[in-house]
């Protein structure tokens, strides 16, 4: 067989393999969107869920998902940032660091249902949080932390060492060099990573079933006091998210239109996650341009 022929076969094979991946993804996405999008309406997005009758919406679930995401990021981002900076800039290359890295990897491969049950036992039961947004946010932090740390570490690591030397040679302290030069240069990568992690958190169900609970109590969107039981901001109330709602409708949904709501909610979920993913790229680039002042 001559090299030209081999090359043609290899190229052909690669195209076939790529086509399989694209077909599976496009098929899945298409199925969900085609089935779901016709069920999405303004009414669907802005009204509460119905327990027994048809015509319910997903307003509370959608809000809960977003609120949970924000809380999760508030908890996990500072921790991941600290850990990432430590691993990339300060950690010596020795066995302790290797143990830490291995543990982070193990944590990231933990099944989310295990994280959920752990959160249930520790926070919901032992600490007496009950099914609550806070318990859910902490569980999601466990789930999110390894990926986020890894991402931040790598973004920092990708910044050229020349930048650090430049900072130090100007008499800047190590910390100032990291916070003023390395971190800004790594920011676009970090932001992209945060948004991609958000997509993962947004679609998570298993870890939340046992922590944030499966009920969406009626809340008052005009009550801004987070300590009030009926406030939409109260972190101690149970909160069914979109992904959990879809799971519940499909396992024990008793409304006559459970199937329609579930398809609509799935489509909304997919659209939001797609927006996260596409937005991540655009926003990361934008920040990079802004930071580096390239026009």
């Amino acid at each position: 067989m001559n090299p030209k022929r081999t090359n043609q076969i290899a190229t052909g094979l690669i195209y076939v393999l790529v086509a399989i991946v694209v077909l599976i993804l496009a098929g899945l996405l298409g199925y969900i969107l085609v089935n779901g999008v016709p069920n999405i309406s303004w009414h669907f997005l802005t009204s509460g869920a119905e327990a027994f009758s048809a015509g319910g919406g997903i307003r509370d679930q959608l809000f809960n998902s977003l609120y949970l995401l924000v809380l999760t990021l508030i908890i996990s981002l500072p921790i991941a940032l600290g850990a990432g900076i430590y691993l990339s800039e300060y950690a010596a290359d020795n066995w302790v660091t290797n143990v830490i890295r291995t543990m982070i990897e193990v944590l990231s491969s933990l099944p989310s249902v295990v994280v959920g049950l752990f959160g249930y036992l520790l926070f919901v039961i032992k600490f007496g949080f009950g099914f609550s947004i806070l318990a859910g946010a902490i569980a999601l932090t466990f789930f999110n932390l390894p990926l986020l740390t890894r991402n931040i570490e790598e973004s920092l690591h990708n910044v050229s060492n020349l930048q650090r030397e430049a900072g130090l040679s100007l008499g800047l302290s190590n910390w100032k060099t990291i916070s003023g030069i390395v971190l800004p240069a790594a920011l676009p990568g970090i932001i992209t990573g945060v948004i991609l992690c958000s997509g993962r958190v947004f679609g998570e169900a298993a870890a939340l079933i046992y922590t944030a609970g499966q009920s969406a109590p009626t809340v008052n969107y005009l009550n801004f006091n987070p300590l009030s039981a009926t406030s939409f901001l109260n972190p101690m109330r149970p909160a069914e998210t979109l992904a959990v709602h879809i799971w519940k409708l499909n396992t024990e949904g008793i409304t006559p239109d459970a199937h329609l709501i579930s398809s609509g909610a799935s489509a909304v979920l997919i659209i939001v996650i797609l927006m996260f993913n596409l937005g991540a790229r655009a926003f990361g680039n934008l920040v990079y341009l802004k930071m580096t002042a390239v026009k």
Partner: protein
Amino acid sequence: MQTYNLEDSYIVTPTESAAITTENIEVSYGSHQVIYQTNLQFPRNKISALIGASGSGKSTLLRSFNRMNDGKANVNGQIWYRDVDINDRKINVYELRKHIGMVFQRPNPFAKSIKDNLTFALKENGITDKQQLSQRTEESLIAVSLWDEVKDKINESALSLSGGQAQRLCIARSIAMKPDVLLLDEPASALDPISSAKLEETLKTLSKNYTIIIVTHNMQQASRVSDYTAFLHMGHVIEYDLTENIFTNPHIQTTEDYISGNFG
């Protein structure tokens, strides 16, 4: 390559007052020694060049002058900056580096605007007056003859500059701190000949106000810009003299072989 007697050396003591003096300096990475027993005096407001083949230890020696080897290599012996032992425990290394600036082999502008490249470190040192910051920026850029090229795009990214411009920006960034000594580690090696020539001109002008020590593997460059030249071979300073003497009338065979291109 033939083996040379590394103990054979010829080292002069410049008559001018010294900016940096090394006394029995030895540098090693772990058990691997790279610099042996070095005694040199670098005179003030002159350009001194360190030449030698790759791996001769010239960059390592240079980097120990502002302690950029901290945490990487062990430095034994004394390095005096005027009358201060820079490896003394009591020395504030960040303060020291403000006096002894450094420019690296590859241009490394920050991913910030041209102006911020110059003002970032100044602001960290408490200069907040806008007028003063602009003035320092302009002065430094004029000193490296970059002002005319960038004055209209001072707020644009430094990453948009060409290699030669970026390198001159890095020098400007160093001198904006008003250091006393400027260390340059092969500053022209990543530049084209025209940018290189411009850079050499810049260095000549700067030497009126700064003590410059430059590492270069380019002998023509060393002979063009420097007043004194030290030739290093395998971690030993073989010869240190007026540049003129080194290139026209070297005392040691090793030096002669190196500058006539027999090795390295």
